[in-house]
């Protein structure tokens, strides 16, 4: 049992992933076709990309509820800026704006000592409001068709968002496991007081983490905007739930200190598989929210069972 739970923490999502694939390949003859699979993976990129950021935040002991609002803000900025300064600069400036929101989050949390939950909850509505104000309350159509390449174009037959996801995965993997910064993030999430006593710049680390989460939200917002060519101030309400689900389902402990990026990657695609499966059995699109909620509940349940079980074992003096 102990071995199983420890293994689950590492590769649990992978098991779901395989089971899901087997199920879908039996249920749908179309599933095992290359473009179907690529399509599912491409649809999983939002969850995975924001999930990477969220994984970092939760590893640091934090939490960011404002990501879907940041996606919307990015979407609005891009659609306004593209006609003014061109596509590359519009993307760049919008991502900077997104990151700036993260910095504000981080500053409020570290300098004003407000809890991440409250801060980002408030920022979620504030940023959503800003997005609506900047957009004048309406959707903004983008005329430059070229921008569509970002989210819907293909390179060598593979949708571009998948490349973006893979590159970000590599960057995050490196960041979390092979840099001093990543080690510091884990330390802060594991025991903040101990990190402080060890001379780590805890506040700065936290601010960086929130900047990075918002940046990933900006990337996800950019991809989604490009797919519709519309700047949408009401984009993706409740998407934060997906990001958190992906992170927890992937095996990152809600208690902080341990991030599992591989898990986040697979969980992102797994959520997309669920959507595909629901589509397959003809369930309407708005049931997707419900399904994500159920998966989140399940992931939290397993997370709780695991930590309680290991705790009990330890209390009984058993080596785990």
């Amino acid at each position: 049992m102990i071995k199983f739970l420890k293994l689950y923490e590492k590769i649990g999502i992978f098991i779901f992933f395989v089971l899901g694939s087997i199920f879908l390949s039996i249920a749908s003859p179309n599933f095992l076709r290359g473009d179907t699979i690529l399509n599912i993976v491409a649809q999983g990129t939002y969850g995975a990309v924001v999930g990477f950021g969220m994984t970092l935040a939760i590893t640091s002991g934090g939490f960011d509820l404002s990501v879907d609002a940041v996606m919307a803000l990015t979407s609005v900025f891009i659609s306004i800026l593209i006609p003014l300064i061109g596509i590359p600069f519009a993307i760049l400036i919008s991502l900077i704006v997104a990151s700036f929101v993260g910095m504000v989050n981080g500053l409020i949390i570290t300098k004003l000592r407000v809890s991440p939950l409250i801060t980002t909850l408030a920022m979620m509505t504030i940023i959503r409001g800003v997005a609506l104000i900047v957009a004048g309350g309406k959707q903004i159509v983008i005329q430059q068709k070229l921008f569509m390449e970002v989210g819907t174009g293909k390179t060598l037959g593979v949708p571009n968002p998948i490349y973006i996801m893979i590159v970000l995965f590599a960057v995050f993997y490196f960041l979390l496991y092979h840099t001093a910064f990543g080690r510091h993030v884990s330390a802060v999430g594991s025991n903040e007081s101990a990190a402080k006593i060890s001379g780590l710049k805890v506040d700065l680390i936290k601010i960086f983490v929130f900047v990075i989460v918002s940046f990933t939200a900006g990337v996800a917002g950019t991809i989604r905007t490009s797919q519709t060519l519309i700047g949408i101030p009401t984009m993706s309400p409740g998407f934060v739930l997906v990001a958190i689900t992906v992170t927890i389902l992937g095996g990152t402990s809600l208690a902080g200190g341990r991030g599992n990026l591989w898990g986040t990657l697979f969980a992102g695609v797994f959520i997309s598989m669920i959507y595909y499966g629901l589509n397959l059995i003809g369930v309407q699109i708005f049931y997707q929210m419900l399904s994500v909620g159920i998966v989140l509940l399940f992931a939290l349940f397993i997370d709780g069972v695991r930590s309680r079980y290991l705790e009990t074992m330890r209390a009984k003096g058993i080596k785990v």
Partner: protein
Amino acid sequence: MHDRELLRLENVTKIFPGVVAVDGVDFDMNRGEVHALVGENGAGKSTLIKILGGIYQPDSGRIIFEDQDVVFYSTHQSQESGISVIYQEFNLIPDLSVAENIFIGREPKRILNRFINWKKINSDAQVVLDRLDVQIDPSEFISELPVAERQMVEIAKALSIESKLIIMDEPTATLTEKEVRKLFEIIDGLRNEGVSIIYISHRLEEAFELSDRITVLRDGKKIGTRISANTTEGEIIEMMVGKVVKSYFSGERRASEERDVIMEVKNYSIADHVDDVSFKLYKGEILGFAGILGSGVHHLLKSLYGAIPRKSGEIFFEGKPVRIDTVRDSIRLGFGYVTEDRKNTGILPDMSVLHNVTIIIIKMLTFFRGLFIKDAREKESFERIRGRLNIRFTEPGQKIIYLSGGNQQKVVIGRTLITDCRVLILQEPTRGIDVGAKAEIHRIMRELANQGISIIMTSSELPELVNLPDRCIVLYKGHIAAEFTKDTMDEEKLVAAQIGQKVGDISGESL
């Protein structure tokens, strides 16, 4: 004799998957007896008392309580029979009042037996607290009480149940010397009333002072029971560790004045805690600081490390004036710090042994300012520290929480040594560590000092303060009350100085 017997365990065994926690233990208690239960961590003490407390049930063996065969299936059942256990971790609810906690689950009711009779619960609680002679307001919330008073509330709760047997697990770990005295009086009183007490403690001298008999457990087995008056600490320690510990405090102590001064602290003050303290720290010495709660020792040590700000004062390091305003300042100067609360401010519980040791210097072990951790160099630095401290673990990737307290402490000390620290500040270096590991930590401290590292330490365990440091400074209410050298150090004088007895009355060097 037999009618005095309250409790007897015969051949009690408890097995958890992969480990025999309690292995065929026989044990007996008389009415009105104080029986000390000692053993290193993992010896089976906790499991044994949890069996008596109804948390675990034995796999085999008999429990005879008041001449009846019993097995307790719940805490409630064990309490009904007249056993109460005061666990090391408190079982008080912080957001309820003292009175509510004392009578929880047994609140006096009124009106159809549905509503709590507040008047009665508070007055009943007052009666119990008066019996203990403690000044605690029954209507106060637990969360507002200091730890020592919470301990007293736990005891009051046990008393209010009219227990025949009270089991205390490390009750003095969080108490000051004065409160310990108070507790001992209470235990004596209980003994005279015919209440039996099982007393578990790491502090052997307490066991000797209090108990009628001492039972030693090791690896789940009972090693033996001795009448306290007829045995020695040496014998008990030998029974506990299974081998002869040559000297509890090893190493040669030297007079500090023969060495160079590495640091001088002048007129150091911390708001509300420390007032105008000056002292010198010599190279390669172990300097002890003694003081009861409120003496300022804890704050002084923490402030020297830069973790809390000072109000005024100067620090000279190797003759040059330095500023220590932050933890980073002091680390840069070569300071290391080990906290008194290993679990909450020491270890990084989710991380491996390796990462716990290297966290402070990880940035130095990279290419390009923080990018690309050099795994090989990290391992190498770690191995050096590991060899120096003899840390035991299965692999460097093992999570630190799975190590014993002693090994965890070595990891935390290792974290400071890896920075090539030259001044090591240790708060409670051996708290919550078993006897064998304690001796090892003491040996390590002496070795480090011999290598030229200057150590500043404090401890709530008197023998540690009396026997380990080369010098010991006593603080009382933020002032230096006395200083002892290795020749003038003496347990009684140290205690006297700590509780503020006039310097002239004790033959320590007055300042």
